[in-house]
């Protein structure tokens, strides 16, 4: 059984303009300034909590917003039928370093709870689940580079055993100020049309190369 990538969102630092990120979806392509407030304005969402998030969560939320904008998953699926399987290389290391600063100095030792909560690899996934009410299977893998076979294999297994009917799948990496994000919406669509991309490891890799 194969499934379809019905939507995608790719975010990466622009190779020419260092202060910009390139955001591609199946229908749009934008070049935007890296400032988090700019990225927020462009998705026109009302979500003040965004400003409290760490960098990787902000990028995850922005990408998920582009991915799911304008569609009503709730009309097609129950909350527990939607799964999420994400991965990255650095876990939360960028935020780990931020938290370390709050405990590094022994005379000024004030560990910050608001930073600590982001010092786990899977928190970006938790934020996306909260925002989009994704309550099904959820998994977070760590690997040096995107492992398309791992993602495709695990997610297809979840579909095959009827644990989920829809999934947000991808790679949400942020390190040294550089985002590298690919989110896919994977669905079991019986009627194939030309806009759909087959959910295979090769297709994941080609979308990652965009």
């Amino acid at each position, binding site marked *: 059984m194969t499934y379809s990538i019905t939507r995608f969102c790719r975010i990466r630092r622009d190779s020419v303009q260092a202060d910009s990120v390139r955001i591609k979806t199946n229908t749009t392509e934008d070049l935007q300034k890296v400032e988090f407030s700019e990225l927020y304005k462009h998705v026109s969402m009302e979500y*003040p909590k965004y400003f409290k998030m760490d960098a990787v969560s902000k990028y995850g939320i922005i990408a998920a917003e582009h991915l799911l904008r304008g569609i009503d998953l709730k009309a097609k699926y129950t909350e527990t039928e939607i799964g999420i399987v994400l991965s990255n290389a650095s876990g939360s290391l960028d935020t780990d370093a931020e938290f370390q600063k709050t405990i590094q100095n022994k005379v000024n030792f004030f560990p910050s709870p608001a930073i600590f909560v982001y010092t786990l690899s899977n928190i970006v996934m938790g934020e996306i689940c909260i925002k989009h009410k994704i309550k099904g299977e959820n998994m977070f893998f760590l690997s040096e580079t995107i492992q398309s076979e791992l993602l495709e294999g695990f997610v297809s297994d979840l579909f095959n055993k009827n644990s989920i009917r829809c999934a947000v799948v991808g790679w949400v990496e942020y390190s040294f100020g550089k985002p590298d994000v690919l989110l896919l919406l994977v669905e079991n669509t019986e009627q194939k049309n030309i806009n759909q991309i087959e959910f295979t490891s090769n297709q994941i890799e080609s979308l990652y190369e965009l």
Partner: protein
Amino acid sequence: MNQLITELKKEIIYQLNLQDITPESIKDDAPLFGEGLGLDSIDVLELIVLLQKKYGIKVNGAEEGKTVFFSVKSMAEYITAKQQQQQQQ
């Protein structure tokens, strides 16, 4: 007291990364949580750290936190009372 209240408003906005909120827009006695500024349990913990770091005051547990952090005014009253206690000792 008024000076402390203004200072606290600025600190809350800065520490909790509140967007599009100015110190003037926070009412002294409006609830910080739920209906008010919409702060959550992690924000309470962060405010506990703020009090300890900036004013050297320790709030014991989230339960005491609920009354202390009800509003900016209750925070200021708590700080003032604690500081007076410390001076007396």
